[in-house]
């Protein structure tokens, strides 16, 4: 009997510290989800509803509406499409360039490559403000639409400029991500392939690329999120309203419906949806991409 009581108190002792741990963990969950939760409930409320109820409470009966979502989607659908047209090619290209550069600067060893590598790595940390004015000068000088007599180029000039810009500024981080992975590839295997007469290109295609699938996943997911979420380059480089990306469109929606919080919140979720879906499906890869920035 006394032994039982002893066991019980011991378990209790373990449990209270574990319970406290989980209580803190859950409190932190509440902290990180509160802005999203209060946004989500607000997005389903009528204006009367969000003025009368607390932000985190679910919409009361009669004050529930999905109309904000409809309006938000209507306002942002063109931006969503433009963002996808711009972000997908930019993501793929910057990852591909990053992979190539990392291979050339990691697995093919030569003197002085560390100096080139430093230039790549430093590019990760550049404040974009330091290139904004030259960028606008450069793209107005290049004037793709004026030089290439194709309707597509003319119609999507802003998006093409933005996409290429994102490719260029995405290369440094992609190179860093690929490099940390390629540094773990067994040198002897590559050396053996070389002795068999395989060229650098063949080794890349036959050995490196097939091994790169996991790091491609990490890089693509990380880069897609970064490019999709960007606002600064988009406001500076895209002037044509028909080429507006979703972050810019959302910022305008927020500015033009000042007191309509349900619409603002619905808009925020609509614009974030692609990255949220990617994050929920590939959270692990995103975390690796984020950690690889260091």
């Amino acid at each position: 009997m006394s032994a039982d009581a002893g066991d019980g108190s011991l378990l209790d002792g373990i449990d209270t510290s574990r319970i406290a741990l989980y209580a803190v963990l859950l409190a932190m969950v509440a902290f990180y989800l509160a802005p999203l939760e209060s946004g989500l409930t607000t997005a389903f409320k009528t204006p009367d509803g969000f003025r009368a109820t607390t932000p985190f409470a679910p919409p009361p009966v009669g004050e529930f509406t999905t109309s904000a979502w409809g309006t938000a989607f209507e306002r942002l659908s063109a931006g969503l499409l433009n963002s996808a047209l711009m972000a997908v090619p930019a993501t793929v290209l910057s990852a591909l360039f990053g992979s190539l550069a990392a291979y050339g600067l990691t697995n093919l060893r030569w003197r002085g490559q560390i100096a080139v590598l430093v230039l790549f790595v430093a590019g990760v940390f550049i404040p974009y403000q330091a290139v904004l004015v030259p960028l606008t000068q450069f793209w107005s000088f290049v004037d793709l639409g004026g030089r290439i007599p194709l309707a597509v180029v003319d119609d999507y000039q802003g998006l093409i400029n933005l996409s290429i810009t994102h490719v260029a500024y995405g290369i440094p981080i992609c190179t860093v991500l690929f490099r940390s992975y390629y540094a773990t590839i067994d040198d002897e295997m590559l050396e053996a392939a070389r002795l068999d007469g395989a060229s650098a290109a063949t080794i890349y295609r036959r050995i490196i690329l097939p091994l790169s699938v996991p790091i491609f996943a990490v890089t693509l997911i990380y880069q897609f999120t970064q490019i999709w979420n960007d606002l600064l380059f988009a406001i500076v480089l895209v002037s044509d309203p028909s080429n507006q990306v979703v972050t810019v469109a959302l910022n305008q929606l927020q500015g033009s419906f000042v007191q309509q919080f349900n619409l603002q919140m619905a808009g925020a979720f609509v614009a974030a949806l692609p990255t949220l879906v990617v994050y929920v499906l590939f959270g692990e890869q995103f975390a690796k991409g984020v950690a690889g920035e260091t």
Partner: protein
Amino acid sequence: MSSRIFAALLRDTDGSPATEGESTASDDPEVRTDGGAVVDGADDPSSSTDTADASVITRLRRSRFLESLPFWGPPGLLVFFFVYGAISWNFLISLTGWEGLGAPDYSSLSTAAYTELLSDASFIAAFRNTIALLVVFTALSLVVGLFLAILVDQQIRFENTFRTIYLLPMSLSFVVTAIFWSWMYNPRIGLINVALRGVGLDALTQAWLSDPRFKLAAIIFALMWQFSGYCMVVYLAGLRAIPHDQYEAARIDGASTVRLYRRVIIPQLRASTMSAAVVLVVFALKAFDFLFVLFGVNPGSSADILSVMMFRVAFDRLQWAYGSAVAMVLFLMALSVIGPYLYLQYRRGEL
């Protein structure tokens, strides 16, 4: 013991599998332990084949260079042009005095913009706020991130779910999070003031985003919310790299959990702290989107930071040269952080 700690410090901080390239270190030119300050000098003395025929080796190396060029050349060209070319061009523009809708005149250059900066009250305010933002935001995010990492590292259930939730804000655009937080901070019906009133702390309710006393603090708090999950990920990788027997040893010595972390574990996370801090500081320097969505180009002198000022001066007032000068200050600030960091990484063979 000290050598073991040193080895732990040398470990990579990211979570990718088998990041320690120690097995290949012998013929790896960049993993030098002699602290070689010369970037491309000094043949590797460890490989005995080098002595056979130096000219063959040179030729081989040259051919390796040529062989590798098609791979890093094109992306390198893009980076060189868009990053380094553009920064040089930006510096040139900052010397021209260029304003308005015309084209810059590169024939007469002067540093007038920079001397003007020193006597510009709005620049000094923005500079001060930038420093305050980067110091407080970085410190706060690191502390919260470390706290989260230690919590998550206690062999908890649903670890993945907790981690995913803490990192979630990092996947959102600043436009999205700024909209969420402007709603959170709404003085009348926002969650923060509603919650304060709910627990009887009416006296603490504030107009968070319009009161000059609280603006910058409110921004820092929201940015901490968004970035602390990132710090958690970095610290968690650092924690997981510490050999398990160190925990055991401390336990056997009878150290309490708090003592274990303070004396044994946290000191070994210096490398994680440093790399996370660099990323946070550099982010704080270029933070723009969040403030722009909340305040437009005029956050007011209590919350103005250099990155917003640069945009306002250049793209709102069309004072291109002056804006470029502000941008150069930002660039130099970033350089003063990343320069030493990259040098240290290089010395440690972690680049």
